[in-house]
């Protein structure tokens, strides 16, 4: 009986080990902006006056709506889809429920070189990254946000279930604090500072395999 139990245990371990697939899991992460800045205005006497403002993801989505004509302002989340072992976006979408509006072309992510602390299954990375959001390619009345920030990214390898299949993937937090500029095609709108975040990754089914 004991021998039988041992064999059962070995078989179970072998089966569960084999079912952890060596595939690149695709993840999606919530992209959020929380920025404050100043724009130029003037007082009643015509003297220059800097007026503060804030810009969040809602404002970014509103700009997308103005530029593309697509209705993307109510209940829409900006999601970045990428492979779990890279930050490079495969696709960026404005998502409501199951319907996606692809906005990849409006964003550019440039990742700087990083220094890191690697503790085996956990790591922390520090780098200067650049994020650009521009609607000028689709709307001459659009705007451009050029943002550069100091990024702290933490990564940890975990095993999660994708349906019934356990998949090993890298969970991350990505937080960039910095500053940038808002511009129209022919003029400056104002300097901004704040945070751009990528939320914790959520596994999505992916056809990509090694």
């Amino acid at each position, binding site marked *: 009986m004991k021998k039988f139990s041992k064999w059962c245990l070995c078989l179970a371990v072998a089966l569960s080990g084999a079912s952890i697939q060596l595939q690149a899991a695709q993840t999606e992460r919530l992209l959020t902006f*929380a920025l*404050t800045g100043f724009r130029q205005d003037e007082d009643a006497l015509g003297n*220059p006056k800097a007026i503060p*403002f804030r810009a969040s993801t809602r404002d970014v989505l509103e700009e997308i709506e103005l530029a593309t004509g697509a209705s993307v302002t*109510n209940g829409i*989340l900006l999601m970045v889809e990428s492979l779990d072992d890279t930050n490079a976006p495969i696709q960026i979408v404005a998502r409501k429920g199951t319907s996606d509006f692809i906005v990849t072309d409006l964003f550019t992510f440039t990742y700087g070189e990083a220094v890191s602390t690697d503790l085996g299954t956990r790591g922390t990375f520090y780098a200067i990254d650049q994020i650009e959001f521009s609607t000028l390619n689709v709307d001459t009345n659009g705007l451009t946000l050029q943002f550069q920030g100091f990024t702290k990214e933490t990564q940890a390898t975990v095993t999660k279930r994708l349906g019934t299949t356990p998949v090993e993937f890298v969970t991350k937090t990505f937080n960039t604090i910095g500053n940038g500029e808002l511009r129209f095609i*022919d003029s400056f709108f104002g300097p901004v500072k704040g945070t751009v975040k990528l939320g914790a990754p959520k596994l999505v089914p992916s056809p990509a395999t090694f």
Partner: protein
Amino acid sequence: MKFVVPVLLVIIALGIYFLTHPASKTDKAGADYDQAFSNPSGVGLRIETNSVRMKRTKVELGSNSNIKPEEIDQQIERIIEASAKADPASFQLITTALKDARPEIRKAALEATIQFGSRDAIPILKEIAATTEDVREKVEILDAIEFLELPSLSEIKRPRRTNSNPARVEGSPK
């Protein structure tokens, strides 16, 4: 070896007792609350009362601490989804979560409040900031208030196209 089984039984029994008697924690908070009100000098009464209220809330909500991590993830997901909407029910969901006992839920709710962008959240945030003991959390709440007080990019629209101040480049204004 003889004692192993009885000792284990005692530990299990104690574990069951403490799990099924969360009220005892609330009673302790209640005693703190009574003590705060019985302060004869009245000095620092307001601060103590606030801190006790926070403790009580946390203990009462904390009785749900057997919630699984997946459930916390699901709740955070609901909060994130609500942050993109603009209806009163979503606002209610987010502001209720601001008072949750679990820090990860409160953190998600604070970020959602910023993204939701309603100035109606400011009085609620001020009230929470007044009762929050954690300095870091308090600063984050105050930052959120400062953020929400500003006009949004969409609100200020596009006042002028050529709106930069040339004085910055050409020379400082006198």
